């Protein structure tokens, strides 16, 4: 198990581990569980067989390799991620299946089929980088700290999001009004369990309470709902007498509740259907689902019933007895809920949730696609059987068909590229889109946060109610309360707390051992064969959704079991949730499955680390600080910082800020220009930002959470001398003044890299090759290009200037391509991408120098953003007695309403750090009085206690009355830049239909001058301005108006004469200026038989 805290690699480890598990063990289980495809031929067919079976015996995922090397040329055969990124291809490895096929239960034939190239997670076991050290990574052009955890699809890095889903194998008591719509007699009460099998196949089962006290079991079969009386399922699972069943459910409690009468109703339901034995129950079940299942004809109803039970009811266990016991427990819980003995549970709290891990989803999609493959092969064979006849017995024929239908690689690639799930069953998920996101490398914080982000599901985005978005105490320590965006995804998109880890590896243990341990600690074993009835004083012990026993001394049992857990005789991350008090449903719930969240806390008794889960946490008493300990406290936090995400930990002194400011900072840290990576030359991202002169923050959290994740190696800001003063007026309304000299010395300098790939594939009209002839070379030189037709590296790219000259073999002429961007740039790199035989893509990488200009956005680390309003000369800046001029001036009004005291403390701390030449600690929740700590040091260094200084006006040279607060604050440059956003035009492109200016900055369009803008101009009496804007610069047109009929449509100039005549009434036309849309409107109305006539005084 991982150590407390994390290293940067640990952040993506969840993703990688889940993928590794899914593609190794997961694939094994998948093969075992995948039902064989049985093809049944009609009796009189000439195929020569009745039934043939096809199934996958073994699935093996390889590693990414290039096509076998051509002879003679010794090249690296392995395919590496860098190459995929540069060439816009996918990092994928072949999935090979061993297929077995059997005819009429005779001998089995085996052959291998390639199911296509499946995208592989970088740094997983299947990636070449997985075991490489830093030097090897650098040699391959990777970043020194390549974290992996993503896929590369068409050159884009894609992450499968962590998704919150219902906790598996835990029966949840739910009250929901919508349940009554499920049918007659249905009530709002139900108990739901989401069962997960070892191959990660998921199937939910709901037990509904009916108004008469009966229960119905609901599950999904092939996208359709099936409702079966609970008693039938019970009888299907076990040959049990009604008396035994009665005793088992009532457990001797006749006093308080009415369970016994409800159980009677239950039993009567079976009697009404005349079902008494297991066989008859199975037959009933089989007959109900036969139509949906469509099994082979030789299967009897009983067998179909068994199949349904095995494949769709409580799939997490294969044992019918376990299933029986679970259903009994669910019914008990349901009756307790209906009786109002227990309070309903909510699906929106973290204690009833867990995560869908990337690898698990991937495996599920793979499974469904394999099933679909078999299904489509079946359809194809049945269709072709009459034509092909005996040929179907041929192995190669089957192999060919399988290969044609198995394009699993492409399917998964589509899924990763679009995030859309195309599924028959829906995989028991609430959404069909939005599963993947692009891993943007804008800066390091952004990149890391992608892997930590957890989404509640896109289904909830449209929901009007806000209950799902609420920050609930259950998520303490698991999800960060600060790091969530504001606006539409608020509360739905969360981030993991710094020490919280989703369990993504299979715990290596034996269930039997756990049961034995429990037994030795005083738990009474639940027999797997006989019916044992425990009185109501005994509470159940459940392990992963199976009842393993009962205990009447739960407190002691829980304590002892926890000690065993800490001693590691049972898995360390096993969740021991003891629900001890009414109105909870009493029980001890043990969970060992994947996807659960765990986090470390200190077990006070032993002083050891204890990994606890959300449901477990609810029933423990955990002290945040030593002083919070109470008599019943059993656990203690390692650090109060553990409740925050890594990014939230980096906000300095965030415990002194107003909380929304910390949320804003978490957003802004992710929009900062910084140092996303160090391998710029091996990257071809569409847009890449770089701060040319980044600095480590003088004041930063040096807590484990931040240090371990390499934030210091990827800085994204500059330490700036900041004065808080209202000076010149250019600092109004969150504007900030920057010292011109500071700017000239490099403050905030940055670069944007953009890439443009020119695809030069051969088409009918084009077959490009490099220029060869002397004439062409001369032409290239004249156009300012190199003799190979490409520009020089370091040359400037200027709008509409040639950037590529190629020879077109089809037309035998040269073609010039020109630089498209409006902004000037420099050719940073030019790459030619292609196969061994033919080059077919040229990749231009441009470098845009983006030094700060007026309107660029900056921010401190406290949600205090501002725009650069002016570059103010140094000699005009206020100065201190030491001769220091601030780099940045911000207005004091930025503080009173926002209450970012953390920024003031950071300023003091930064000043101390700058004077002493030491980095300062800025983690939140420090015990010391920070203002006093830094104030004293300032005094010692000969500054005033609070860091304010006497300043002189740079313009007048006179002393300013007030002392000015001056210190050092880490400033971030945000990626929103004027150069990307400015938009202006007088006239320009217009819409064809209306002749009005087009929309959009890219198309050089206009900005809408809307009604309100028009109103304000009217209010000012600026009618000529309006005429200019809305007419002259918009859709001004001239036309003729008929004096007689007032139409503007019918008048045209008569040939040869200077007179316009109306075609409709022969009236005389006069020239008028009109907005073109008016003519358009007139035309449209004319089409509807409405004439638009104008009164005039002409």
């Amino acid at each position, binding site marked *: 198990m991982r150590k407390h805290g994390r290293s940067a690699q640990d952040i993506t480890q969840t993703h990688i581990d889940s993928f590794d598990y899914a593609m190794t063990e997961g694939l094994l289980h998948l093969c075992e569980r995948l039902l064989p495809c049985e093809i049944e031929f009609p009796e009189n067919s000439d195929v020569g067989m009745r039934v043939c079976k096809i199934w996958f015996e073994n699935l093996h995922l390889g590693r990414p390799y290039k096509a076998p090397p051509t002879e003679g040329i010794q090249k690296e055969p392995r395919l590496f991620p860098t190459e995929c990124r540069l060439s816009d291809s996918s990092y994928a490895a072949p999935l090979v299946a061993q297929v077995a096929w059997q005819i009429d239960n005779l001998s089995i034939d085996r052959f291998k089929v390639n199911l296509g190239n499946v995208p592989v997670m970088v740094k997983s076991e299947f990636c070449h980088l997985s075991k490489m050290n830093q030097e090897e990574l650098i040699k391959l052009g990777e970043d020194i700290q390549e974290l992996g955890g993503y896929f590369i699809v068409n050159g884009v890095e894609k992450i499968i999001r962590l998704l919150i889903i219902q906790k598996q194998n835990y029966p949840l008591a739910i009250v929901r009004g919508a349940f009554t719509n499920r049918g007659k007699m249905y009530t709002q009460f139900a108990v739901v369990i989401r069962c997960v099998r070892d191959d990660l196949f998921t199937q939910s089962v709901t037990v509904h309470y009916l108004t008469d006290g009966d229960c119905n079991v609901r599950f999904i079969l092939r996208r359709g709902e099936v409702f079966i009386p609970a008693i039938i399922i019970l009888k299907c699972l076990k040959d049990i007498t009604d008396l035994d069943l009665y005793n088992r459910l009532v457990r001797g409690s006749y006093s308080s509740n009415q369970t016994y009468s409800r159980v009677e109703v239950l039993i009567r339901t079976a009697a009404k259907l005349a079902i008494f034995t297991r066989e008859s129950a199975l037959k009933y079940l089989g007959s109900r689902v036969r139509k949906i299942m469509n099994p082979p004809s030789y299967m009897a109803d009983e067998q179909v019933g068994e199949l349904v039970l095995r494949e769709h009811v409580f799939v997490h266990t294969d044992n019918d007895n376990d299933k029986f016991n679970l259903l009994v427990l669910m019914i008990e819980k349901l009756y307790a809920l209906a009786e109002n003995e227990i309070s309903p549970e909510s699906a929106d709290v973290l204690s009833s949730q867990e995560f869908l891990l990337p690898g698990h989803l991937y495996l599920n999609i793979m499974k469904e696609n394999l099933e679909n493959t078999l299904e489509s092969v079946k359809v194809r064979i049945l269709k072709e059987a009459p034509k092909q006849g005996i040929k179907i017995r041929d192995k190669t024929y089957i192999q060919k068909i399988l290969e044609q239908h198995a394009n699993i690689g492409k399917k998964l690639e589509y899924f990763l590229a679009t995030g859309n799930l195309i599924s028959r069953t829906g995989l028991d998920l609430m959404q069909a889109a939005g599963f993947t996101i692009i891993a943007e490398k804008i800066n390091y914080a952004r990149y890391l946060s992608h892997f930590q982000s957890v989404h509640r599901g896109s289904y909830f985005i449209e929901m009007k109610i806000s209950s799902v978005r609420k920050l609930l105490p259950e998520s303490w320590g698991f999800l960060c309360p600060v790091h969530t965006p504001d606006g539409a995804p608020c509360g739905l998109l969360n981030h993991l707390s710094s020490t919280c880890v989703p369990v993504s590896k299979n715990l290596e243990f034996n269930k039997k051992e756990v049961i034995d341990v429990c037994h030795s600690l005083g738990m009474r074993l639940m027999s797997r064969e006989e019916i044992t009835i425990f009185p109501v004083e005994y509470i159940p012990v459940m392990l992963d959704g199976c009842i393993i026993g009962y205990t009447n001394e739960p407190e002691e049992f829980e304590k002892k079991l926890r000690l065993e857990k800490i001693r590691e005789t049972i898995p360390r991350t096993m969740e021991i949730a003891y629900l001890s008090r009414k109105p909870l449903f009493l029980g001890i719930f043990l969970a060992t499955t994947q996807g659960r969240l765990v986090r470390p806390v200190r077990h006070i008794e032993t002083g050891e680390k204890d990994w606890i889960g959300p449901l477990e946490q609810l029933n423990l008493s955990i002290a945040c600080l030593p002083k919070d300990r109470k008599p019943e406290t059993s656990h203690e936090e390692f650090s109060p910082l553990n409740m925050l995400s890594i990014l939230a930990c980096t906000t300095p002194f965030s415990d002194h800020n107003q909380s929304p400011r910390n949320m804003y900072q978490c957003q802004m840290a992710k929009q900062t220009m910084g140092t996303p990576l160090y391998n710029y030359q091996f990257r071809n991202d569409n847009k890449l930002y770089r701060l040319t002169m980044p600095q480590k923050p003088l004041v930063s959290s040096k807590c484990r959470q931040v240090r371990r994740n390499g934030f210091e190696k990827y800085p994204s800001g500059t330490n700036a001398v900041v004065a808080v003063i209202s000076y010149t007026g250019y600092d109004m309304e969150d504007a900030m003044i920057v010292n011109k000299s500071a700017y000239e010395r*490099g403050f905030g300098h940055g670069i944007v890299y953009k890439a443009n790939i020119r695809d030069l594939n051969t088409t009918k009209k084009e077959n490009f090759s490099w220029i060869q002839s002397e004439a062409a070379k001369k032409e290239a030189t004249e156009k300012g290009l190199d003799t190979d037709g490409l520009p020089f590296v370091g040359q400037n790219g200027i709008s509409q200037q040639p950037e590529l000259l190629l020879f077109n073999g089809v037309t035998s002429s040269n073609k010039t391509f020109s630089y498209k961007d409006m902004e000037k740039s420099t050719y940073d790199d030019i790459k030619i991408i292609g196969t061994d035989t033919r080059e077919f893509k040229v990749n231009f990488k441009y470098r845009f120098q983006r030094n700060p200009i007026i309107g660029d956005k900056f921010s401190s680390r406290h949600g205090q953003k501002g725009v650069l309003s002016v570059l103010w000369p140094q000699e005009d800046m206020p100065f201190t007695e030491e001769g220091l001029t601030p780099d940045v001036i911000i207005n004091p009004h930025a503080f009173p309403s926002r209450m970012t005291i953390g920024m003031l403390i950071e300023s003091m701390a930064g000043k101390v750090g700058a004077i002493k030449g030491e980095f300062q600690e800025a983690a939140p929740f420090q015990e010391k009085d920070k203002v006093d700590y830094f104030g004293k040091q300032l005094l010692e260094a000969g500054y005033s206690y609070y860091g304010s200084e006497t300043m002189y006006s740079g313009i007048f040279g006179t002393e300013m009355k007030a002392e000015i607060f001056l210190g050092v604050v880490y400033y971030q440059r945000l990626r929103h830049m004027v150069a990307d956003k400015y938009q202006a035009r007088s006239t320009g492109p217009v819409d064809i239909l209306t002749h009005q200016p087009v929309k959009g900055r890219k198309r050089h369009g206009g900005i809408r001058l809307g009604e309100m803008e028009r109103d304000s101009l009217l209010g000012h009496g600026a009618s000529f301005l309006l005429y200019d804007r809305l007419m002259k610069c918009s859709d001004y047109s001239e036309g003729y108006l008929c004096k007689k009929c007032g139409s503007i449509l019918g008048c045209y100039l008569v040939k040869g004469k200077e007179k316009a005549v109306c075609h409709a009434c022969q009236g005389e036309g006069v020239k008028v200026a009109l907005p073109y849309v008016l003519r358009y409107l007139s035309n449209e109305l004319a089409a509807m038989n409405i004439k638009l006539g104008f009164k005039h005084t002409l």
Partner: protein
Amino acid sequence: MSEVYRGRAPNIEINKITREKIKFTLSGVDSSVANSLRRVMIAEVPTMAIDVVHIHTNTSSLHDEFIAHRLGLIPLISENQDNYDFPRDCKCTGHCEHCAVQFRLKVKNQEGGVLDVTSRDLRHLSQQGNDVRPADSDGPILILKLRKNQEIDITCNARKGIGKEHAKWSPVATAVFKYTPDIYLNQQRLESQFTAEERKEIVNSCPVGVYKLNEESNIEVVKLNKCMFCEECMRKGEMIITRSASALLNVHDNVVRVSQLKDRFIFKVESSGALKPESIVSKAFTILTKKLDDIKQLIPPLINTR
């Protein structure tokens, strides 16, 4: 402000000169004059700095603009800048020996390891202009680093300019003045109303150590010029008084009073290395005078039009 009107004569008194720093007291002038001097030193004393950079080869890991920017910020010894014209005043088109000094930076790392390219690798292209060279008396200034087989080949022109145009032409690191502090101690009251302990409190209240207790445990001003007008001592004095007796406060009647002499300025000028500190000051005066002269030139036509 009555003292402003009394008759006075401007005076300069030099307190300290080192290789990179000068401290002097300017007295008998208003803050406007002092500030003008400060502003001219920062923004208008010309120096030479690399301005136009031609990059022939750059296979280093740094990009062209970045190297050019770094080259520009290297201080060049500009004592002889009078020999050069401003590019805009020069008759030549492009550059000539009257307005530019050309350098070449041509380095290739052939040995392996990491090779530092510093300001000492900048070579003059011609004999002329040897007086303008990087100021590296404190050691060479690092420009970039090269890995094996990386190469840099640059020619660049140093030209004359002023800090107003770009900070690289500013000859000063800091140029600053402050008013001369004037500290009044009411020794009589200090002795009568304050205990020795309380006097010590006042002495310790000063963050920069202006005061000292002498043998008789009386307060003495020892480092007057260090005072930064934080008024901590005044506040402490008041505090002690209010602590002992609830007297109404009167600042003018304070036991400790810090005020400023508004016509005496303590200047501190640190050079960037391009010019000697004293020549920055004298150049600044020359420029100030020239500015006034330039304005004076405009007067005759004004009179003639009357």
